């Protein structure tokens, strides 16, 4: 287990040492979203009865911060190591592929949670947003960050250059998170878009997480939980397979 803990520690240190860029900066951008949407939309939209728009928006923004940072952590760590070549130190070591998997995923979860918690804590200064069912919220934040950590690992292993990773991030992760209902409830969408939203796994993470805040959601939290859990298992299997076979890592 020493090997696993060392790699986990290293991955945590890696983002902690540049915490301004990896933790504070994403918090600032999430808060900018909040201020802009609060200013523009607060008076015009009510998504759930008795839930102000900003209050609705906050869990969405928190979850989006979690998702994007969990992904950014494992993907940037992996591709930097690959491109600079220092991934060999991990590949040469007796670490098992499971140890590598869990260390990267847990570090991603930690960064996602840290940023998410930071965003939430700062919003509390301005807006009172209590968490009605904290265990539900925690469950979704853990599962969501784990999925994105694994996706980040997949993207980092798959991409041969930063360009490809940016494409993965900008054409897959970003649209899926923006279109997952962070800023709106999918019931406000035309019926066709509602169906499409149901194909977006990020929708279930955000909807389930929001259920933890308000006890209300677009669909049953149990359905969301099942879908998110299945996604995590499937993506983890894929990631572990890539690590075990040495896909793009061992030639």
């Amino acid at each position, binding site marked *: 287990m020493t090997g696993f803990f060392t790699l986990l520690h290293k991955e945590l240190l890696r983002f902690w040492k540049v915490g301004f860029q990896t933790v504070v900066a994403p918090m600032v951008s999430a808060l900018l979203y909040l201020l802009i949407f609060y200013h523009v939309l607060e008076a015009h939209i009510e998504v759930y009865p008795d839930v102000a728009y900003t209050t609705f928006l906050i869990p969405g923004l928190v979850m989006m911060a979690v998702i994007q940072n969990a992904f950014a952590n494992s993907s940037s760590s992996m591709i930097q190591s690959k491109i600079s070549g220092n991934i*060999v130190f991990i*590949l040469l070591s*007796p670490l098992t592929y499971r140890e590598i998997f869990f260390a990267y995923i847990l570090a991603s979860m930690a960064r996602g949670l840290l940023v998410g918690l930071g965003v939430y804590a700062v919003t509390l200064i301005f807006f009172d947003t209590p968490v009605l069912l904290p265990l539900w919220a925690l469950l979704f934040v853990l599962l969501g960050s784990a999925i994105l950590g694994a996706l980040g690992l997949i993207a980092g292993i798959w991409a041969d250059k930063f360009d490809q990773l940016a494409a993965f991030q900008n054409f897959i992760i970003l649209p899926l998170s923006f279109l997952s209902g962070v800023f709106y409830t999918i019931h406000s969408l035309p019926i066709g878009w509602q169906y499409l939203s149901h194909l977006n796994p990020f929708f279930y993470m955000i909807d389930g997480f929001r259920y933890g805040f308000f006890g209300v959601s677009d669909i049953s939290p149990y359905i969301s939980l099942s879908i998110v859990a299945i996604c995590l298992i499937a993506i983890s299997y894929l990631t572990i397979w890539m690590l075990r076979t040495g896909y793009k890592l061992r030639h």
Partner: protein
Amino acid sequence: MLPAIAIKQVSKRYGNVQALIDVDLDIHPGEFFALLGPNGAGKTTLISIIAGLTLANSGSVKVMGHDVIADYRQARLNVGIVPQELVFDPFFTVREILQMQSGYYGIKNNTRWIDEIIERMDLTDKADANMRALSGGMKRRVLVAQALVHKPPVIILDEPTAGVDVELRQTLWDFIKQLNRDGHTIVLTTHYLEEAETMCNRVAMLKAGRIVALDEIQNLIGKMSGGRSVRLRLLPDRLPEALLPLEINRSNDMHELRIDGYAQLESILSTLRSAKIQILDIQLQQPDLEDVFVNLMRNNGNLAQ
């Protein structure tokens, strides 16, 4: 005796390029072994397969009896690899890197040994400097230090002295020699044949993915080179009749004569004297590994068995 590294029938293909073809090689514990060959001969591929960084298409490799695929954890615990590229992690200091490296190998409190390798690699001043701030030679030392944190019985160095200044090269070799004396098996690749000649017991020469020579250096030189010779410049510029059968080469105004031993010089000199031929210049030619190398790479010679 169990070989330190046992390579059996290893082949590796990259697309259409056959990087290694049925390579068989046993390296014994305690050896100081060199893998030689021109660029693209397959040296780094072979090392990468031993390290588990590259997967062979067929064949097997064992390190201290552990298969590098099936039993990869044990195999990797038994080998330390110094990669050819100057790779480093820019987030950490030298000491942090070495502590992490120990951790990867399951070693918790390694401070004493880390201190010792830092000192022996002459890195004490730089121990708490970030990797980015180090010169190329310093980074090379850290790479060697990293390969040693888990005290592996087998140490493999892929061109450890490439781009390293003379002074560091000397320190590095002294240190590696010391490791060999301490019982570590050393395998290295190098382009500097004179280094291999002075340091190693045995060499394998690779050419286009095959081992074309595998022997102790002295045997190789004996087998492959034309033996000793003497080069003479004469006045007048002609060889006496009696010496003509000895001539093996003539370039410009130098005559090269094969000799079986230095004792033969005496008779050559006296023949010249009695023919009233003056010697303007004389050079003794001692064959070295470079001759063997050049011969092998030029011809299709195969001395592997």
